């Protein structure tokens, strides 16, 4: 019973710890204020601060953009009961100076001519607390200066799903021509055929793995999501499969070689690691040059230490 009571208190303890960790500095630094009308990037005099004017005012000059937003998931910026949302001004900042200045572009935040970090900061104000974007700031894309609007178009996206400028894989190919070339090779994952999306294996917003690859729930290669029969665990593992990953032997995007292997012949691939055969007779001038003719369980076996089955 004592243990049970302790168990029941655990969530409370966890929440209390979190509050303590984040709340204590807050007490020292003062409460985080609700978002107030911010200064536009080139505000007027210090005495003036921009004020929110409302999306209907924006619509007066920018009707097309207004309609676009209204027809997209971003309509919530105007309709949400969240006091921090101010429609168009949620992204572009308070617009009074811009309106009063007769549409002065310097008096409002535009997404042109600013660094990718500033653009991303705007978008992440709302979109940060998501598992998909939790590592964006440490991602390859962020470091390369790819901003949110490099792939997404809040106004007039060609692809309403996720507001993409272009649907996959064409969008990704605009920068990753090497991947486009790979998917044109004879043996390839069916990306061009729309069976697989780039985002099935990669998270464009970044992950904790290299090349922004996703992983299974237990942290293994994303390949096992579809190729579940290779996942194991096996009694006799083929070590590099588990430790080094599938790309030790396979080229995931595409290859001229069958089975997407990195080498055209199986024995060339195997012998690069298995450079001395312990005791077996494997004369390479006979059937033994076809390694997988015998070593069938190449991804792991539950019954053969030499992966025969």
């Amino acid at each position, binding site marked *: 019973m004592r243990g049970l009571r302790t168990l029941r208190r655990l969530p409370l303890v966890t929440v209390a710890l979190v509050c303590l960790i984040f709340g204590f500095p807050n007490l020292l630094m003062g409460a985080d204020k609700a978002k107030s009308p911010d200064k536009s990037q080139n505000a007027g005099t210090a005495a003036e601060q921009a004020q929110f004017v409302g999306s209907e005012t924006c619509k007066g000059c920018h009707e097309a953009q207004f309609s676009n937003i209204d027809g997209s998931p971003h309509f919530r910026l105007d309709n949400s009961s969240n006091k921090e949302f101010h429609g168009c001004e949620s992204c572009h900042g308070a617009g009074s100076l811009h309106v009063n200045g007769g549409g002065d572009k310097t008096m409002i935040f535009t997404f042109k001519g600013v660094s990718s970090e500033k653009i991303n900061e705007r978008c992440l104000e709302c979109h940060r607390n998501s598992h998909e974007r939790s590592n964006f700031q440490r991602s390859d894309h962020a470091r390369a200066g790819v901003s949110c609007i490099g792939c997404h178009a809040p106004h007039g996206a060609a692809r309403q799903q996720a507001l993409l400028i272009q649907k996959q894989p064409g969008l990704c190919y605009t920068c990753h021509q090497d991947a486009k070339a790979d998917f044109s090779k004879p043996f390839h994952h069916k990306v061009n055929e729309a069976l697989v999306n780039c985002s099935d294996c990669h998270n464009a917003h970044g992950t904790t793995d290299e090349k922004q690859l996703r992983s*299974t*729930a237990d942290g293994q290669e994303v390949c096992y999501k579809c190729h579940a*029969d290779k996942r194991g665990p096996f009694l006799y593992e083929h070590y590099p499969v588990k430790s080094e990953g599938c790309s030790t032997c396979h080229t995931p995007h595409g290859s001229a070689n*069958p089975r997407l292997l990195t080498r055209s012949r199986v024995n060339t691939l195997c012998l690069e690691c298995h*450079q001395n055969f312990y005791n077996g007779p494997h004369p390479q001038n006979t059937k033994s040059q076809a390694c997988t003719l015998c070593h069938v369980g190449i991804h792991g076996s*539950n019954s053969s230490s030499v992966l025969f089955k």
Partner: protein
Amino acid sequence: MDGIQCKTMRPLTYRAPKRYGMKLTSIYLLGVALCLLPGTLHAQSVPAPAGAGQVYNGYTVQNTLELGGRVTSISGNSNMYDTMENQQSGGRLLDQSFTARSLRHNGAFFDELWFSSFGYGGDPQEGTRLRMYKNKLYDFNAVYRHDQNYFNDNYLGNPYNTPGGFVVWNQAIHQMNTRRNMGDFHLTLMPESPIRIRLGYARNTNRGSSLSSLHEGTELSLAQDVQSRQDQYQVGVDFKVLPRTTLSYDQFFDHNISDTSYVNAPTGLFYLNAGTALAPIYERVDIGATYNTYYGQPCANTPAPIITVVGGVNVVKNLTGGSACSLFFNYHRSAPARTNFPTEKFSLISDYWKKLNVFASGSYTSAVNKTNYLESADDFESRTSTRGIYLTGPGKIRQLSGNADLGVTYHITESWYVSNQFKYTNWRIPGTWDMTSANCGPVGAANALSPIGTLGNPYCALIGSLNTSSAGAGIGSSYTNDLWSLLHTDKRAADTTILGWEPNHVFGAHAGFRYAQRTVAYGDFTTGTTTTLSAAGVPATAASADDSNALYPETDHEKVGLFGVKLHPNQNWMINGDVELSYIDHPVAAILPGHSQLYKLRTNYRLGKHATLSGFINDKYSRNSFYSADFALAQINTNPVLTGTPTYVADPLTPVRHQGHNLNYGFSAALHPTEKITLDFGWTYQNLYSTGGVCIPMTLAVVPQGGQIARCPAAAASGTLYDSEGDPYSSYNGVPAVLHYQQNTNTGYVNLIMQPVKRVSVLLGYDLTSTSGENTWLRADTLAPFMVPVDAAGNVIYAGNTLSGPLAGYAPGPNPDVGLGPLGMNWHLPTVGVELALCKNVSFKGAWRYYDYHEKSNPGTYIAGRDFQANTGTLALRFSF
């Protein structure tokens, strides 16, 4: 929408009470959507233009539908066409999309519903994607995909048999014809509330027929009935405990089922012949997939011919003892496996402090795989003169893994930031197999027709052979009860720190360092008993041979320098460069890079809507001068690992270590000079190169061109050298050689889309992939090509083989009769398409695609060529409304 009737829904004339109007509207639209569900979307179709569609009772509805069919003709190797493309003739629902969006965002069941489909009716890839959401209530995504996976490329794994009317493999020995069906479903409840619930389910089935093989005396071809399924469940909760801070818990449960089974495939069947007459009852036997009597495969063929033709049928002589061919009457194997992967995961995402971004997660998995293995065969193995195999026993394998990630980014100033990513993984795979195996011996003279003796051996009767005797087996009957215990472990910790500087929107740079340490270990332990039976069936039990290997951990350390630059000279132009310099002190395998350098340069320039130009260069160079003591080639162990400290001797391959590079570069351009013309073209070149030393077994009597090569390890030292498992090297003499591999790939494409007149669009396209290269073995001593003597038939000549013809010349060794295959091929794909707008919302589409696969080298003397040509025509009507 008029005239569309859905059986599941009320007819259109029904008028619901107004107060339920929106709900019924939503139901109706959902029903219409479901009626249209078996549609298709080809990857090249154009989505409905923005703003198009009809307004219906508070929803904007857009629909596209493309119905048609394909006609295919193939010449050449149709197996290769089916492996690479597999587009067959037949009707199709090529493309379909449906979108319904609530105008006022107050739909009863959804604010937006979208789904699209493609490929139904016979395309090898088919799928449907769906998304529905209702503001603040839920967000639902679903994907269904079907993939017909056909593989029949005879280049891989082929035994390269000689002809002669016997076993010839012109197809892949591991053919596959399987269907994979994958469904993924994700539901988020209350997506904008402080407590958010996420539910997920995925199902993946893979079923079909394929061929496998088994090395057991000979190489038996097996029919493999593939049956596997994976179900994945996920329940997650997000708590927004503080502003910009989310605490999450996820529970995952994956359940895998594998019921794949094997029986001997009905190929290569022979009649068993005891002389001139066909033997009774057990005349049908399988001698395996390998047939090359020059090299004594499947058997020594002495006194020849053991495999011959009698009475018009293929026969194999039933000989006694080691001269006989190993053969199978039947074979069966089943190994059902059930695996559970429960995973618990906690995550924290926080931007509570404006300048600090934190992500942390920790997960734990305790997986278990339970198998129940059963293998039995009525066979004759010539090497051991045994009859019958029986192997069974339950296995239990666990995978225990813990993962932790911590990522922090701190914006020091407007221009400077520092980030750190720590990643820790630790998994161990302990497994046990309570194995019972039996070798059954023949009664009387050891040959394939000898009955299996069951006396004293409780397992031999379980094989199910029709030819058994209750007498004791003459030789070879034994059974073993062993408990195998194995352990694999891998523990890795990596920390990456990066300092970045972005003073303005034009320039940015970063520099960083990664340090990682990894420890891997493997060990296996065996304990049990082996019972050997005398001819009278009297058992003698002794401890099984101990093949244990102590846990042998190895640790490596990785250090990586990371550098990058980004330039935005103007709004339209982006340039990125990255350099990665890596060093691992103790790579555990020869192919893993000890030193590596990666250079990347990428640029992208957009001229408004009229042009996008791109270019890139990637170059990765790697080499490995180090070896793990376990797999050392430079270091050959002279003491058993288990009982003494390893000491090492030099080997002749010391200067030749694995090195390689992967260089690729290219450019692309997408031009849109006018509204009516789009030109899209690009070219990419890849050079893949690797080289490394090997010590390979080769028949001692082969004298390569240039004279004999000092063997590795030296023959005189055989018996005194031990491998990493403490087993002494047997007396073989390896040939030191250098593997030299180079693959050059050119990939190019051009697509021209024109609209010569208002209603007509024309597509002209061409894709080309071309490879060249070499897969050469070099002598390790002189680095000259490793050339072997061959006779006129291409057989490698070696002393002692009386079947050799006179020397006809030298050919690239070790196997001169294998062509370059995909290392030298052209793959052409011209395409022509036209779209004609017939009337409002209806257009006709036609396309022709040509496929031309051609290998530049001879496929090999005894194997079918893989070239093919194919034409596919596609005709369709496209409706948009």
